[in-house]
């Protein structure tokens, strides 16, 4: 271990410490992908990094399965399974490390081909100093270190990632319909409806997941919608991923932000280019 003598922080003491050789003991070496600024934000609210944790999941589906007006359950389920497998993978890694949760996580949805999706999660597992009594259920969150810091200071804590996925097919137009409609200004109600209903179903699923986590709400929801229009496939895909949060026993704490008025001009006022 490094010298345990307490000393005031400063470059002099820091360099003095480096003059003494480091003797590797059986200390736990923490690993984190946090920037120093993020590390400061976490330590300030009583969280220490433990390790980098990751989860990954992939799934494929049959894009022809969707028929007009019906939800492509296989397709939607495949996407949900990929995200869910990544989530359970990262939660499992958190449990084996006895960590409270993962923060500053990057979540990537990579579409490798038309019908293959890989979801990966990677972030820093943290251990709180007596903040969360519920250590058996570690949390995952899509929040950045900054947002996590703000959330905790405001009296909330994340309880998990809530996802909502839905795929809705719509009827293909025949060639004559397409040609006929080309001269008119009309709404394509089938497609508008499909978009609405996929949104509804995805949000329903997300709410259901959040309710299972006994959350008060969901924040930082990222939405991805994608129309899939090809010869054989007409569908709308809707994917929503967010963080379910709970209010602590002490309720909401006002952060009382200080309003700031910067004295520089807004861009484009002083100089036309910037």
């Amino acid at each position: 271990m490094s010298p345990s003598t307490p000393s005031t922080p400063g470059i002099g003491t820091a360099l003095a410490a480096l003059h003494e050789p480091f003797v590797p003991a059986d200390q736990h070496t923490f690993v984190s992908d946090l920037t120093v600024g993020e590390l400061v934000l976490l330590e300030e609210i009583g969280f220490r990094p433990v390790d980098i944790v990751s989860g990954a999941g992939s799934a494929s589906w049959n894009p022809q399965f969707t028929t007009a007006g019906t939800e492509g359950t296989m397709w939607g389920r495949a996407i949900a399974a990929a995200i869910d497998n990544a989530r359970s993978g990262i939660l499992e890694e958190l449990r084996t490390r006895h960590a409270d949760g993962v923060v500053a996580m990057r979540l990537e949805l990579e579409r490798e081909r038309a019908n293959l999706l890989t979801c990966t999660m990677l972030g820093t597992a943290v251990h709180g100093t007596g903040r969360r009594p519920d250590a058996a259920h570690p949390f995952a969150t899509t929040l950045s270190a900054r947002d996590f810091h703000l959330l905790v200071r405001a009296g909330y804590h994340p309880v998990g990632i809530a996802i909502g996925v839905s795929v809705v097919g719509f009827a293909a137009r025949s060639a004559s319909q397409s040609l006929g409609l080309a001269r008119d200004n009309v709404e394509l109600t089938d497609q508008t409806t499909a978009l609405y209903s996929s949104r509804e179903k995805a949000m329903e699923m997300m709410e259901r997941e959040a309710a299972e986590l006994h959350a008060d709400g969901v924040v930082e929801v990222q939405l991805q919608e994608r129309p899939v229009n090809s010869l054989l496939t007409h569908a709308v895909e809707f994917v929503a991923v967010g963080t379910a949060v709970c209010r602590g026993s002490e309720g909401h704490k006002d952060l009382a932000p200080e309003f700031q008025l910067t004295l520089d001009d807004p861009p484009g006022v002083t100089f036309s280019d910037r």
Partner: protein
Amino acid sequence: MVGQTPDATGTGPATAGPGDLVFHPDTRQRSTWTSDLSVAEAAAVRRVGLVPAGFVMGTAVMQLAAAGGQLYGQWGGMMGGSLGRGNGYSESYPCAHTYGYSTGVGLGGAASEHYGFSVEDSVLAASLTDGYRLAIERLHDEATQLGAHGVVGVDLFFENLVGSQGTATFFARGTAVTHPATAPLPSPFMTNASGQHFERLIALGYVPTGLAVGVGAVYVQPNCQARGDFTVGGAIRQIPAAITVARSRARSSLAAMAHRSGEGVVHTDWTDRKVNRYGESWDQLAIALGTAVRRYSTEAEPLTPRPVLPLRP
């Protein structure tokens, strides 16, 4: 002024360094210091009490020996066992349509396209780690020659700059800094954190010790399902398993390297990369580059940030 020449620190110009083989660090007389710090970074370094000593660099051009692991793996995987090098990860993924491999060869031969395997490519991981290590060592040598106490803002990366396909040029570049009032360290510290992050790190009670590198690589020959064959949809195991193994190797070698010099790693720059190989196969790479840190003080002042809301649109 503040420029530090090697003589000013009392070490004198080194006559023989660890990199004595070919690469003599830049030993010309310096009349001023150079740096790749931004103005704000330079100001942060000054606030801490350090002064720039000079821009330092380490580089190495490497031939990446990737093919070895793949070829061994290819046959090892087919046999269902590992002929592997060492005892790395290897796993076979039979056809999801349950076509037998031997049947496939006899009747139509379709099954070979359906069969997949993943095998750890420790040869590729080792050559990437070596490239980074050489670049870092040479950077360290230059900083030592300058009598510096450390290097901040190290940029660590590789690219195909020189040489043919299969080669990679590794770079480590940063600014050497000195503390005028302190005797030179036995070994200068190095960090990939910027000047401002370095300032925060010192304020938090941590001091950087050196750079830590972790690389993991898994060669993936996808089976029918991992290739996206939609007749066998559903959850796929091969792709996430390869990602997980590559990441876990990178993480454990990062931690092992840091364990020798500090209590943890911060500022890890994490990259997942898929490098296409022959046919539909690829190398799943995970590269982690961070800074090993030591806690030198437990009496850091709280840095509790004040929430502000700018009123500018």
